């Protein structure tokens, strides 16, 4: 079974530009979560999508947005990039089921804003 995949692996952008990050969940998983992990820090929850809809978002400005497609893959868009947006962006997926709450993470996209 293929795991969660993310692309690109690395992304270098200039301040003010836009970045698009992509995630494909494990087959059969309908929920996708996005997290930001700044260097040496914990996981900051960004967004949660399930069945194509945004279910929850963390304390991030509106320039962080995304969507989930009918095949459950997801996209995270970051507009008007700022230097402090430099971080590892992790996508995780989970399976809806009784008592099944664990999340499976992709390898992440390392975003560098210069």
């Amino acid at each position: 079974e293929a795991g969660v995949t993310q692309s690109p692996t690395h992304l270098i952008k200039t301040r003010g530009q836009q970045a698009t990050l992509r995630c494909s969940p494990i087959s059969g998983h309908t929920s996708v979560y996005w997290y930001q992990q700044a260097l040496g820090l914990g996981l900051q929850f960004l967004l949660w999508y399930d069945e194509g809809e945004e279910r929850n978002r963390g304390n991030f400005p509106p320039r962080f947005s995304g969507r989930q497609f009918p095949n459950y893959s997801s996209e995270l868009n970051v507009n008007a990039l700022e230097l402090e947006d430099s971080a590892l962006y992790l996508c995780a997926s989970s399976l809806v089921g009784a008592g099944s709450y664990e999340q499976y993470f992709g390898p992440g996209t390392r975003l560098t804003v210069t």
Partner: protein
Amino acid sequence: GQQVMQIPQYQHVQEGEDFTTYCNSSTTLSNIQWYKQRPGGHPVFLIQLVKSGEVKKQKRLTFQFGEAKKNSSLHITATQTTDVGTYFCAGPKAGNNRKLIWGLGTSLAVNP
């Protein structure tokens, strides 16, 4: 708001020593999950505890869920260099089992 706290933030041990990290929630949890993130890697799910007082073992790792379901611990016996990484605990947000509240993690360094 609901918080999950982990201590210690960092731990440095000699190979062969034991290691314990503690996780405390501000609210009662329906379950608690533990993840491990190796340096340069991504978090990997280790285990989920659901029952009050539950104890689960994975080789040298022992996970406990407190009786009040507000705290948990991960104990590693006789650490090895392969145990290096950051250990996170996470619990579901009250009223929303699908969203996790994460601790900040405990970073473990092991001297060979």
